[in-house]
């Protein structure tokens, strides 16, 4: 399964995830409170430089990761223009760009296993109140393994449909797909049970 982590190693990768998340949280709170346009522009420029420092290829990758959000941003700006609050819209857009590009930087420079390890650490205290959180890592792995499987099943169902009909299958594939997923869930449950009993 693909992830949004950068293959280009940067100094940011060496920072502990918990620090990066703390910086992100503090920056978000501060940026949304700021109203000074000059400081906001300086912060936006700083964000651009932070993304540029590891090299132009890293910057291109960051822009590619952020590109799906661009249409929504344009929509928000147009909405503000339409309602007669263009300046307010532009200030908001700058705030979003700062926060979202910093969040993207954290995502790109933090390994998935580090993030999962952090979550496992955070939920550990729940054991004290009787909640079994030992299966968390297994559950993450199961989802990541199952998505490509389900997409492959969808592709096959799509071919089967097209060999019989000229119409697009659309929502009609969802019911057989759910049946496959439910069958798979029953098999996975058996496998987990077998593994647990083997481990005593």
């Amino acid at each position, binding site marked *: 399964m693909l992830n949004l982590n950068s293959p280009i190693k940067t100094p940011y990768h060496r920072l502990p995830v918990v620090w990066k998340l703390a910086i992100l949280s503090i920056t978000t709170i501060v940026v949304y409170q700021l109203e000074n346009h000059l400081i906001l522009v300086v912060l936006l420029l700083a964000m651009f430089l932070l993304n540029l420092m590891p090299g132009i290829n890293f910057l291109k990758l960051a822009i590619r990761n952020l590109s799906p959000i661009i249409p929504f941003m344009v929509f928000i700006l147009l909405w503000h223009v339409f309602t007669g609050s263009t300046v307010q819209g532009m200030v908001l857009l700058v705030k979003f760009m700062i926060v*979202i590009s910093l969040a993207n930087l954290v995502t*790109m420079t933090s390994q998935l296993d580090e993030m999962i390890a952090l979550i496992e650490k955070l939920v550990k205290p729940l054991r004290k109140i009787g909640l079994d959180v030992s299966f968390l890592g297994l*559950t993450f792995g199961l989802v990541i393994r199952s998505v490509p499987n389900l997409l492959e099943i969808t592709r096959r169902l799509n071919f089967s449909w097209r060999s019989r009909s000229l119409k697009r299958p659309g929502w009609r594939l969802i019911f057989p797909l759910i049946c496959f997923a439910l069958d798979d869930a029953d098999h996975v449950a058996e496998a987990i049970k077998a593994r647990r009993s083997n481990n005593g």
Partner: protein
Amino acid sequence: MERNIAYIALFAALTAALGFIPIITLAFGVPITAQTLGVMLGGCILGSWRGGLASLLLIVLIALGVPLLAGGRGGLGLFFSPSGGFLIGWPIGAYVCGLIMERFNGIHPFAIGLIASVIGGILVVYMAGVMGMFLTLEQTFIEIIYLVMVFIPGDLFKAVVSGLIVMLLCKYRPESVLSRNG
């Protein structure tokens, strides 16, 4: 226990996979995917807590940077954008869908599946989404409601599909509809 883990993980994966299937393509070429249908179905089929956990698991993985949101998106940035509230609304919406299914067990599966999907999958999710937009966009509630209205017809269509799927499952494999079996 094992069955619950498997069902929660598989439904999170199913919801993610539905984000890559266009169920309708609008006249101007924008595809509407079935991802929120996965949220509705998670609650309607698995029940309140399992459905809620399936959606929660998916949004945690999205936040961790796995590109499982429709169109291959992911990462923390999404939660800081104005539409982040919708994502946070998913587990709550799925939970409410499941709760309605569990409480009104005697009603026809299509009717209750549709009602649960409209209340949990649309009303609750939109309430969280609108709240998120209200906090970030500095617009009035009414303006934001106008802004999101355009997506309601597509979601109503998904709620109907959700009702149909619940009805088919109740007919052909009732043992899989955990919301009705406890």
